[in-house]
């Protein structure tokens, strides 16, 4: 038992410290900070959803915010249409709610759709992308294009989405009629985050996770062992999309505002940066990256004037250049080195490209 605890990776300790910190945070901080932290925890969930996709399966989705935004918009629209046709629709001459908005008037259905819509979009996109064997950089480009397409779509459909202004004045989460306080909302978000974290850990540890890592390492080899990689990629894409949608739904009542910024390229890039800074494939890196960067963003922007983005940019550059595996990835390596375990230093994302005498033939065959 003791041995098991000692062998526990350093990342598990960090997770535990983070959890204790988040649980005790409201005891020390003002309601304003607690509200900020709620948003931060939502971003942790969002980052986790990308980590099972990018970190585990190696599918770098450059448009991941589309799932976040879809989940968010479904819930935001359901709030907006709760009491009939909202003002922004009236100004475009809509007098009666179309059928797809009437469905959203039912809160329970809206919550369900907030998961199912991103999941269905992921399934549809994933089906076409993965069965047509789009891989590597082409996958990245397609997802980037899709993100800007969806952003454009939400900007243009002003009648139904509020266009570039987004949808504002959204109420906080309520439970049985009475709205939740900031503190209650915070702990609700935290519990959801904890459940998502446990789910992702389970996913990574079961055989499915092992196969995902095999997809990342050597997809073409996997086929000759009887696996259909497209099926595994499709499932993780859908699961990841649904978790991102869930985080988008939580975001809406906490932020009380959603706009196309939350669905497009810029926000997609943010989550990539969190993972790049924190590290990929171990869940902890994704959370630490999201946590540090969003927290730095708000602290720096309070203390410095316009130069805060420069400082943040410099920090990101330093991390990415000097710790290409991210803060947590580097920490895990360092720790393994120290305890005399295997040094997996060659095993970063670029390992696939490195040509060694052993894989020369394989690479040549692929080309």
């Amino acid at each position, binding site marked *: 038992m003791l041995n098991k605890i000692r062998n526990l990776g350093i990342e598990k300790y960090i997770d535990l410290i983070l959890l204790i910190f988040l649980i005790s945070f409201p005891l020390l901080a003002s309601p304003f900070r607690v509200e900020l932290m709620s948003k931060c925890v939502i971003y942790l969930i969002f980052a986790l959803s990308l980590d099972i996709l990018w970190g585990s399966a190696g599918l770098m989705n450059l448009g991941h915010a589309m799932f976040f935004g879809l989940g968010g918009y479904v819930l935001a629209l359901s709030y907006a249409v709760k009491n009939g046709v909202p003002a922004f629709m009236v100004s475009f001459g809509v007098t009666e709610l179309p059928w797809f908005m009437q469905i959203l008037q039912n809160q329970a259905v809206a919550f369900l759709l907030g998961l199912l819509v991103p999941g269905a979009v992921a399934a549809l996109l994933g089906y076409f992308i993965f069965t047509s064997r789009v891989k590597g950089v082409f996958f990245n480009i397609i997802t980037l294009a899709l993100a800007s397409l969806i952003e454009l779509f939400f900007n243009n459909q002003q009648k139904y989405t509020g266009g570039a202004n987004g949808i504002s004045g959204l109420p906080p989460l309520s439970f049985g009629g009475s709205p939740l306080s900031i503190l209650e909302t915070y702990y609700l978000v935290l519990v959801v985050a904890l459940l998502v974290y446990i789910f992702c850990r389970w996913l990574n540890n079961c055989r499915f996770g092992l196969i995902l890592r095999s997809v990342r390492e050597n997809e073409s080899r996997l086929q000759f062992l009887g696996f259909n990689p497209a*099926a595994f990629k499709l499932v993780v894409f859908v699961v990841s999309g649904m978790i991102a949608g869930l985080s988008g739904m939580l975001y809406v009542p906490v932020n009380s505002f959603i706009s196309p910024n939350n669905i497009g390229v810029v926000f997609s890039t943010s989550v990539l940066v969190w993972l790049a800074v924190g590290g990929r494939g171990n869940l902890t890196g994704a959370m630490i990256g999201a946590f540090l960067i969003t927290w730095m963003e708000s602290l720096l922007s309070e203390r410095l004037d316009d130069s805060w983005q420069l400082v943040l940019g410099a920090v990101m550059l330093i991390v990415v250049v000097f710790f290409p595996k991210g803060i947590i990835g580097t920490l895990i390596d360092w720790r393994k080195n120290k305890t005399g375990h295997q040094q997996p230093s060659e095993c970063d994302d670029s390992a696939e490209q490195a040509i060694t005498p052993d894989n020369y*033939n394989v690479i040549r065959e692929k080309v």
Partner: protein
Amino acid sequence: MSFLELQDVSVSFSGFLAVDKVSLGVEQGETRVIIGPNGAGKTTIIDMITGKTAPTGGKILLDGADIAGLDPYEIASKHKVGRKFQGPNLFDCLTVYENIEVALAGHSSVFKSFVYKRDKAIKEEIKSILSQINLYNKRDVLSTSLSHGERQWLEMGMVIAQKPELITLDEPTAGMTADETCKTGEMIKTMMKDKTVIVVEHDIDFVEQIAQKVTVLHQGKLLAEGSFDEVKKNPKVVQVYLKDDDDEEVEKDA
């Protein structure tokens, strides 16, 4: 009818006929070696049997079913064909143990990957495979840190874990020392005793060690077929293949 039967199989890559109407039959339990000079179409034939390349003509019958043009994963899971690639082709950043675990037969659907449990029987199975390929003591090592020969063996272990009926080995001894080559030959003889095995190989001593029957390809066509001794004495084979390498060089220069 033979267990594996290629009937007039051809494939061309943008006009170049890589394999030209090759027919061959391999009996159940046989170990067949395919030899031939570079570019003879040996690997292409393995590619077609395992689904990497679809033939442009002909039939590939495995136990009576036509598998030509199916996806690699279907051929591997439904028709139980295993493949060892030329030059070890592994999951680099997984451990030796995990490489074998991925390959284990019968757990390759998405659903099964969720309900799979590493129970006692599975642990025993992996342990037995790892012992057979002499890597049990290195089970927690990343496959990247193995030596070249060990990597070749690990891939052989993966093929065994796949429990195939038909095993294709593409140059299993490439880059090995003489000692390792000999050990590999013994592995094939013991571990794959009751399986049907097709081996593509260059090393003539190794061919002699394992082959029951040898097929010689030349420029995409079947040149000769028979026991090792028959083939070795066949004048056509001697002319295109078994000559000294020096002659090949001369040919190329000319």
